[in-house]
C-alpha cells in the first residue's frame, strides 16, 4: 500500500472511530417531563419551548426579556417551561440563584421572583454574596421566609437542580441559554430568534 492509499485508509478509520464514538455518546432523545418544569402559557400551544437557564447568564437574561415580548403578543401560541442549568464553573452565583428560584417555585412564586431577579442580574452578579438581595426580593413577592430558609438549607432543592442539569447534559446541553423548541435544540438568543421566525414570520 503506498502513502496515498494508506492516507485514505487512515482517514476512513478516523472517520469511523469518531462516527462510532458519536453514535454511542449521542444525546438521548427523551421527552422532558412537563410536570417537573416551571411552566407558563397554553399547554396546547403550537410552540412548545423548554429553556435550560443559568440565572447569572447575561444571554439568558436577554432571552427571558425577548420571550416576554412574545408572550405579550402571542399569549396562546407559546408554552414555556424552564429548567435549571447552573454553570457553576463560570458563574459564582449560578447555584444560589437557582436555589432561590427553586424554593420560590415550591411556593408558587417562581415567575414573580424571576421578574425581579432577571432585570437586576447585572447588579447582584457583582456582589460577593447576593443573599440579602434575594431575601429582599423574596419578601417583596410575598414568600414565606421561614419556608424559604428551610428550603435553602435542605439538600432536596439542590438535588432537584443538579438532577435537571444532569438531564440537560444527557440531552447535549452545554451552554446557556439552550432551548428545545418543539423538541429542536437551539442554543443562544440569535438562534432562538431565527427559529421563532419560522413560527412567527412577523417577529423581529
Amino acid at each position, binding site marked *: 500500500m503506498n502513502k496515498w492509499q494508506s492516507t485514505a485508509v487512515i482517514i476512513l478509520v478516523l472517520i469511523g472511530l469518531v462516527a462510532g464514538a458519536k453514535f454511542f455518546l449521542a444525546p438521548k432523545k427523551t421527552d422532558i417531563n412537563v410536570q417537573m418544569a416551571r411552566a407558563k402559557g397554553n399547554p396546547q400551544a403550537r410552540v412548545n419551548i423548554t429553556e435550560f437557564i443559568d440565572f447569572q447568564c447575561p444571554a439568558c437574561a436577554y432571552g427571558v426579556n425577548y420571550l416576554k415580548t412574545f408572550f405579550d403578543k402571542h399569549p396562546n401560541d407559546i408554552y414555556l417551561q424552564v429548567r435549571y442549568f447552573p454553570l457553576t464553573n463560570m458563574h459564582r452565583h449560578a447555584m444560589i440563584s437557582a436555589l432561590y428560584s427553586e424554593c420560590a417555585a415550591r411556593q408558587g412564586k417562581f415567575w414573580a421572583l424571576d421578574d425581579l431577579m432577571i432585570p437586576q442580574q447585572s447588579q447582584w452578579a457583582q456582589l460577593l454574596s447576593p443573599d440579602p438581595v434575594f431575601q429582599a426580593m423574596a419578601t417583596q413577592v410575598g414568600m414565606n421566609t421561614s419556608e424559604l430558609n428551610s428550603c435553602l438549607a435542605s439538600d432536596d432543592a439542590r438535588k432537584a437542580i443538579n438532577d435537571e442539569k444532569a438531564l440537560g447534559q444527557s440531552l447535549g446541553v452545554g451552554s446557556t441559554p439552550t432551548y428545545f423548541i418543539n423538541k429542536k435544540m437551539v*442554543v443562544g438568543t440569535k438562534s432562538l430568534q431565527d427559529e421563532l421566525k419560522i413560527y412567527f414570520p412577523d417577529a423581529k
Partner: protein
Amino acid sequence: MLSILRILIGSIFLVSSLGKLFSPYQNFLYVIQAYQILPSWAESLTAQIFPWVEFFTGAFVCLGLWTPWALRGALLLFGIFLTAVGQALLRGLPLESCGCFGEWIHLKPQAVFLMDSASLLLSAILLYNISRARKFSLDSYFDHGVR
C-alpha cells in the same frame, strides 16, 4: 524533542475538535455567533465542518503524516483563532469563554490568545525544522521503510 512538540501541537487540535464533535453542533454554533465575525448563512455550515478540519489537522500532525502540509494547516488554523479572538477582544465582545475546547475546558479569551500565539510560534519552529520534526512519524516510515 521536536517530535514530542509536534505531537503536543497535534494533541491540542485533537482535544479541541473532539470536544466539539462529541457535542451537538448547536453548541459550537453558539460560540461562533458570539464572535460576530461570519455572516449568518456561513455560521451553521462552519459549526458543522470546522471541527472536522481541526480533527484531521490534529491527527495528521500527531501521526506525522504529510507533516509539512499538516503544519501549514496548523499555522493557518492558529492564525484564524488569533484573528477571531483578537478581534473579539479589540471590539470588547462579551465572551465569557473562548469555546475553543467545546464543553470540556473553559478558557478566558485572553488566555487563549496567549496560548494560540505560543502554539503558532511552535508550529512555525517545527515547520522550519521539518526534518527533525518528522522523526518518529508516518512520513519517515513511508519515506524510508516503503519503496
